[in-house]
């Protein structure tokens, strides 16, 4: 039986012979056989399969559905949050206990993660258990049964949906970012990841089943894996039966700009300011990320002020000496994005902090950046990417996004090369483009002293 190390080598040989079948280009085999290889395939039953083959003894699997919170309507707000919780509910062939115990017996468990665009059902298993685990994931995503008492139990039980919402209330920063999206995009990408309080108790099985049948359908469901053999995954994916697609009209996200604030009191103020940023498909994506590192993403050394590398922090430190946290924020989705900054400060200082940060932000965007800034930022960006991709969960999420929304998969190595190609002119062009869009702002915590967006960015 081929060991983990020799298997990628055998894969690359087979890839050259399977010319007609594989849609991905056959890669020239490189000097080492431990370099990861990516494959993507769209199957006839509507499933998408994406793989990054590595020599890892642990396989990271996920079933990704293009069913995130952006697809909610005003009538079923929070149904994506509910679906995240309902990953524990029974399916056609497995009871609640069966799902938990079966995955525990394989040495694994199932995690359900939701973003604005996708819902991921993730699991990490050793390579020999991949088949069984994928069957469990298949049950969870294509054979759900929403029984009325289970649905109402999830909404009343203190360790299900109410717990999530109680935790959410303890995190004003997360609330601030949610409000920022809502101010910027209104519906679609503006829909919150968290269910509103008034919907607890109102979810019923028909509504949820309707949502699932529409969005977990052929063409929107992908089986992805890191550290697993591509043919094995393809074969497992061909057993899936995604719901027949009803052909949902794709609602494009549109950046509006606006201002929302929610005063919940407390000592701190949490403020987010953003402009319309590049989407994931936009070629301005990487220059914008470089610009983000020029502006600064918080301290790189623990407990330092972070003023050495962050333009925003430098400006704010000159105007106020109380503790503050200022960081550039980017969010990129398949057809829209945000580029801005967040600021957290004591309520008495927040006006100074926000004004100086906003002025500096606008200055950098309109006046451009220097070559030395850009080269430093590129190094920092690559370092951050390297460190993030060391985390297999992030790699898996990234692979899921690529499989669902694009025709080919690029490896982390290729992305580093693309970052090297970013020039100062690119970055300055992106900065000017971003500065021309309408600003959005959100504030939570103690918003008494937070200035309004038209007074800080005129």
């Amino acid at each position, binding site marked *: 039986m081929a060991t983990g190390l020799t298997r990628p080598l055998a894969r690359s040989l087979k890839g050259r012979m399977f010319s007609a079948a594989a849609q991905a280009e056959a890669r020239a085999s490189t000097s080492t056989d431990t370099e990861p290889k990516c494959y993507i395939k769209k199957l006839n039953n509507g499933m998408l399969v994406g793989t990054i083959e590595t020599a890892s003894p642990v396989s990271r699997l996920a079933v990704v559905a293009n069913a995130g919170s952006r697809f909610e309507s005003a009538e079923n707000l929070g149904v994506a949050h509910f679906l995240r919780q309902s990953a524990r509910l029974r399916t056609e062939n497995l*009871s609640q*206990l*069966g799902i938990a*115990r079966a995955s525990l017996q394989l040495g694994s468990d199932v995690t359900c993660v939701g973003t604005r665009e996708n819902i991921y059902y993730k699991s990490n298993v050793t390579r020999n258990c991949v088949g069984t685990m994928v069957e469990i994931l298949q049950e969870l995503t294509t054979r759900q049964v929403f*029984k*009325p*008492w289970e649905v109402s139990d999830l909404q009343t039980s203190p360790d299900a949906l109410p717990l999530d919402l109680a935790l959410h209330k303890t995190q004003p920063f997360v609330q601030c970012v949610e409000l920022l999206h809502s101010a910027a995009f209104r519906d679609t990408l503006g829909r919150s990841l968290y269910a509103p309080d008034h919907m607890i108790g109102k979810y019923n099985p028909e509504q949820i089943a309707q949502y699932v049948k529409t969005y977990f359908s052929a063409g929107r469901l992908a089986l992805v894996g890191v550290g697993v053999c591509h043919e094995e995954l393809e074969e497992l994916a061909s057993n899936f039966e995604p719901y027949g697609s009803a052909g949902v009209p794709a609602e494009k996200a549109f950046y509006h700009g606006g201002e929302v604030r929610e005063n919940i009191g407390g000592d701190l103020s949490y403020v987010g300011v953003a402009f319309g940023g590049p989407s994931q498909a936009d070629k301005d994506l990487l220059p914008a990320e470089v610009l983000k590192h020029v502006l600064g993403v918080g301290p790189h050394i623990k407990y330092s002020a972070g003023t050495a590398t962050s333009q925003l922090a430098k400006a704010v430190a000159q105007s106020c000496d109380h503790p503050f946290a200022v960081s550039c924020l980017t969010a990129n989705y398949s057809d829209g994005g945000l580029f801005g900054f967040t600021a957290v400060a004591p309520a008495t200082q927040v006006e100074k902090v926000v004004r100086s940060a906003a002025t500096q932000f606008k200055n950098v965007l309109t006046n451009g950046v220097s070559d030395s800034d850009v080269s430093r930022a590129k190094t920092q960006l690559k370092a951050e990417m390297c460190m993030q991709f060391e985390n297999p969960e992030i790699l898996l999420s990234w692979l899921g996004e690529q499989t669902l929304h694009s025709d080919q998969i690029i490896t982390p190595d290729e992305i580093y090369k693309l970052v090297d190609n970013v020039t100062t002119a690119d970055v300055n062009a992106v900065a000017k483009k971003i500065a021309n869009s309408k600003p959005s702002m959100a504030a939570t915590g103690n918003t008494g002293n937070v200035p309004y967006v038209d007074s800080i960015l005129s």
Partner: protein
Amino acid sequence: MAAPARQAAKQALDKNSLLYKFKKWCYNKSYFRELGLRRDDIIMEGVHAPAVKEALRRIPKEELDARNFRIMRAQQHSMMKTVLPKEEWTQYEDDVSYLQPHIDEVIREWEEKKQWDSA
């Protein structure tokens, strides 16, 4: 007595067969139908009483309300030592089993838990 056999007979419900007529005759001899009750209303299930409690939590609200009404009406009649007028007695065809499937499901879930815990 009649419940499991009746489920099986539903698959091939031949109203003129001798077996069906015999079952109907046995059913018509019972007392609970004269009080307007259905077979599932009188399930006590001594050792499985918690299963009945859990199953009652699962049935739809309309079914639960109808069951409670039938039971209260039957208790009233029983206290007064009367029965309903003959037109209102439960008919064999109307006596659909609404609770027993849920009880079976609950017991199956408990058995599954016992199996997982013992292995």
